[in-house]
């Protein structure tokens, strides 16, 4: 290496050092260290699905589906039965492997390469259509298992609850209105309460992206309204994808300005505010079956 090149290199390094010390975290994404399962949200996109296709025995459940969810966005997804909503969630959470396409969490995590627990670790949590809680454990224990902690076997064998963990559980129970039920066996809760417990279990995992499959199914009007309030308070802090049939609930969530995506036969049919998509001729055709 000739001396003048060495000098040029030193100057470059110096300039880089200065720019690194002055740049703010919201700046360009290159040159930052990103760790294993830490999603990189510098581009403002939380979830990016590109041309995902899934077929079961020749039936195309997803047909080149592309979708992007921004960081902090609350997105509602609607569509008739069999439109591919649940399959989409299966792909995102690693339950189903797509035949083709790409799925990224942030700009750096390729979801198709990870197993379910790793995807959870990266920050994607999912609520099932049918409320799925540990029926024979107490409400408190349900949340205890969901709380962010070492998921390994040795850690679980010797785990001790800290005061901070108990406080966090109490906080979440308050948020989902289940504090008085803390000691009850989860199997004895009402259907709506189980839905809330499951939502609480998701929150306990401190996810960045929440996937909610029909979260208000089986809830009373009042419970539905409270759930909408809860989700609205979460938007901004978390990204939420809500699959729902209940248009009243979708209306509460979108508040007239948030985006709604309509799925049909495994791909996006329309996107826009609820009023826009409801006025869309194609959407009306699909829903009315013309």
């Amino acid at each position: 290496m000739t001396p003048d090149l060495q000098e040029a290199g030193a100057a470059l390094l110096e300039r880089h050092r200065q720019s690194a010390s002055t740049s703010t975290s919201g700046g360009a994404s290159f040159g930052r260290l990103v760790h294993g399962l830490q999603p990189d949200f510098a581009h403002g996109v939380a979830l990016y699905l590109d041309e995902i296709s899934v077929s079961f025995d020749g039936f195309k459940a997803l047909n080149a589906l592309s979708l992007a969810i921004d960081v902090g966005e609350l997105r509602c997804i609607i569509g008739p039965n069999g439109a591919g909503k649940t399959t989409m969630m299966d792909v995102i959470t690693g339950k189903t492997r797509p035949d083709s396409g790409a799925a990224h969490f942030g700009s750096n995590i390729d979801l198709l390469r990870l197993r379910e627990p790793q995807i959870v670790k990266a920050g994607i949590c999912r609520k099932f259509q049918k409320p799925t809680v540990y029926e024979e454990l107490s409400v408190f224990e349900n949340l205890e298992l969901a709380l962010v902690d070492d998921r390994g076997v040795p850690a679980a064998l010797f785990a001790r609850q800290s005061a901070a963990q108990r406080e966090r559980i109490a906080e979440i129970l308050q948020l989902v209105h289940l504090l008085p039920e803390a000691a009850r066996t989860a199997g004895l809760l009402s259907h709506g309460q189980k839905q809330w417990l499951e939502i609480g279990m998701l929150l306990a995992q401190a996810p960045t992206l929440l996937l909610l499959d029909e979260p208000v199914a089986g809830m009373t009007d009042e419970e539905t309204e409270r759930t909408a309030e809860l989700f609205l308070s979460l938007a901004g802090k978390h990204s939420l994808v809500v699959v729902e049939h209940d248009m009243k609930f979708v209306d509460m969530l979108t508040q007239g300005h948030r985006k709604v995506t309509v799925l049909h036969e495994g791909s996006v049919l329309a996107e826009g505010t609820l009023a826009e998509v409801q006025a869309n001729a194609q959407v009306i055709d699909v829903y009315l079956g013309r």
Partner: protein
Amino acid sequence: MSPESPVRLLPESRRGLLLGVRGWSVVIGAVAIVALVVPLLNLAVPAGNPLHLGDWGVALVAKIMCYAMCALAMDLIWGYTGILSLGHGLYFALGGYAMGMYLMRQIGRDGNYRSELPDFMVFLDWKALPWTWGGSASFAFQMLLVVAVPGVLSAVFGWFAFRSRIKGVYFSIITQALTYAGMLLFFRNETGFGGNNGFTDFKRILDVPVAAPSTRMVLFVITGLTLIAFYLLARAVVNSKFGRVLRAIRDAETRVMFTGYDPLKYKLSIWVLSAVMCGIAGALYVPQVGIINPSEMSPAASIEMAIWAAVGGRGTLVGPIVGAFFVNGAKSWFTQAFPEFWLYFLGALFIAVTLFLPRGIMGLADRFRKKGVEVRE
């Protein structure tokens, strides 16, 4: 923390004492009975005395205590984790064979053929020990095998089965097939473990006569203390967060997976633990019963283990121990009083438990004790 703090509304978390005062008293009482009362009544009280405990009774209880360890192991995987194994007899037998190999070598030149080799090898005209018998003269090495062989086999089998997400009845059938395959393998003389006769005619253990009253009593005490230790170990496991994850896997495995736990690791851990428990039970069983042969690997033997756990009460730890004592106690009485009716009785017992006592004897005891609505764990 203010007095209205929501944390106060939470249930108390369990602390590390494992059992309450009553529980520990029962455990200490059990230790005293096993280690003091029984030896005294059997060895110190003369045979004519009404308080004397006969050798036959002691041997029967020792045998049942080995079975109770298996029932406890079954309960950990079936009652708490929801995995029904119909093949744990395999691990029991493997532990027994590892012990049996050592006992065969202890016979030395006192066998029928006055040879260094075990009798069955002389009979087969073998000139040297096969490689599998390499360490069989060493007690320590064979005790290592008692733990290692069931441990490694169950780990390999479990890893493939759980990784492929084989569940429910399919899993049970595969475990059944595995123990059946093991039985066929051990039936063959070429396998080198005595074929269908297995091992018997043991003379010594650690150079002391295995059938001497004092040796039998030492084995009895060790068996009893091991059972109590297994109970406490199982209690610690199910009371830990690990145990709650196991019950969560039983109730909603997908939720566990989507909460970031890897069910594979949890299932595999408890699976291997239960196999090792059965292996140790088998190793304690063989010197006291005096025989080990491939029939211990027969599917029926493994199914019986599931019956003990179910009759006693799944999902409680005392239940399987009670179940093992109840079923085997009934068996030894029935096979003497009405030998031809035993199998009918066993069948009727299982039907009755399934129909009327879904939670076994412990569920029945619960119903009598507290007629409240409290739900047991």
